[in-house]
């Protein structure tokens, strides 16, 4: 097998077509479809020879090119009223290429912009973890990404060795809801990590997390953090007196 095939890294079929058009010094408005089709098929073959996975998009583009080529070969009926697209089967492709080129160039100009923490610097402030819990810190609502992140970090820390085991005693979401509520009772806030035991097993982590989400949904608890990526705190959303043990069963919450 020879290794003299050089394949550049194309972002997609449009990128490949632009490259071919430029390489052949073609006018983008007057693409020689047959030449471009042959060359892109050659490149697809080369990709296959190199055992590269040819993505479906490239095959689709090759098929489109062949379709356009076949249309160009067929005689046109002059009597019908055809709009521009139908007159020249290449028009749609040209439009997409031009639009793509526009954003490709825009992307390159983004790359050249002065960038924070590379060319331009602003003052760095203390890492949020270190200033957590100080009075007067402005709290912001926790976004879904941070929450999922925190959950995944927790799961990673508590990976059990896998042992098949049948548990009779089953942890329920409503149990955990009540546990969290009693933890919150009389307090202003509880840390995200404090809701979990010191060495929780995976089951415990998941059920507790579900309980937390359930509480947020029931508007009993608000999840706040004092900065993006800062640690997460649970705040009771209602005053202390209203927090009473919850008598919802798992079934009514939708967990069985």
């Amino acid at each position, binding site marked *: 097998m020879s290794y003299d095939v050089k394949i550049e890294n194309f*972002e*997609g*079929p*449009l*990128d490949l077509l632009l490259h071919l058009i430029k390489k052949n010094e073609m006018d*983008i408005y007057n693409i020689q479809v047959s030449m471009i089709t042959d060359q892109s098929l050659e490149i697809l073959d080369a990709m296959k020879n190199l055992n590269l996975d040819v*993505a479906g*998009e490239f095959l689709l*583009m090759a098929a489109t090119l062949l379709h356009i080529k076949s249309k160009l070969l067929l005689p046109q009926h002059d009597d019908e009223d055809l709009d521009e697209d139908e007159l020249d089967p290449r028009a749609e492709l*040209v*439009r*997409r290429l*031009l*639009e*793509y*080129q*526009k*954003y*490709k*160039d*825009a*992307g*390159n*100009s*983004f*790359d050249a*912009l*002065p*960038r*924070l*923490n*590379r*060319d*331009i*610097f*602003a*003052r*760095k*402030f203390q890492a949020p973890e270190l200033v957590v819990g100080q009075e007067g810190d402005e709290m912001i609502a926790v976004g879904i*990404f941070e929450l999922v992140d925190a959950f995944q970090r927790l799961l990673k820390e508590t990976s059990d060795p896998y042992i098949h085991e049948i548990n009779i005693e089953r942890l329920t979401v409503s149990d955990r809801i009540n546990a969290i509520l009693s933890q919150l009772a009389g307090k202003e806030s509880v840390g995200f990590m404090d809701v979990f035991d010191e060495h929780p097993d995976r089951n415990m982590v998941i059920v507790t997390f579900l309980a937390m989400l359930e509480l947020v949904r029931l508007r009993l608890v608000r999840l706040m953090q004092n*900065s*993006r990526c800062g640690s997460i705190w649970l705040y009771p959303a209602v005053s202390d007196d209203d927090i009473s043990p919850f008598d919802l069963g798992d079934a009514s919450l939708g967990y069985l």
Partner: protein
Amino acid sequence: MVISDVRKNIEALVFVSEAPIKLDRIAEILEMKKNDIKNALQSLEEEYASADRGIILEEIAEGFQFRTRQECAGAIQQLVKTRAFRFSRAALETLAIIAYRQPVTRAEVEYLRGVDSGGVFKTLLEKQLIRILGKKDVPGRPLIYGTSKEFLEFFGMRDLSALPTLKEFSDLSVDLPETAEVGIDVAGLALSEKEKEE
């Protein structure tokens, strides 16, 4: 307050503020008219720009922040030793499409790029350069995306009007497969226009 005191206070506020501080916030704290604050900020901005200093005052993401001059980058890089992440070409392309065409769905971006963009979207969301603005009011209710405040801070832009102008290759523009109007107020975008007029 005397003008010079105002300027002093504003300078101090911008200095200690963790994120770019908004004009409205400064006006609220100093209990002064926005217009006066604006003038003071402008004169400060000019003063920093003309002085031969390492720091300039810049309007970023609709707020004000002190930033270092670009020519000092080399020295600072020695100090902080951060490795700035490099954008892949796919990420740059996708970011550009989202920035210029927002609010936009993933399907629309993929149509323009001609290639699957799921992974790139994930990376950009993780880097918090783009955010989900809501759902589009078309069948399937796809998520619509736009750039975030962090995007403006990252590239040092005042607002989206500071995006470099798109080079037009032709007047033809691609009609996206579904061009139904987006039935959602794009938070932040519409607002910033109003705020500017004030």
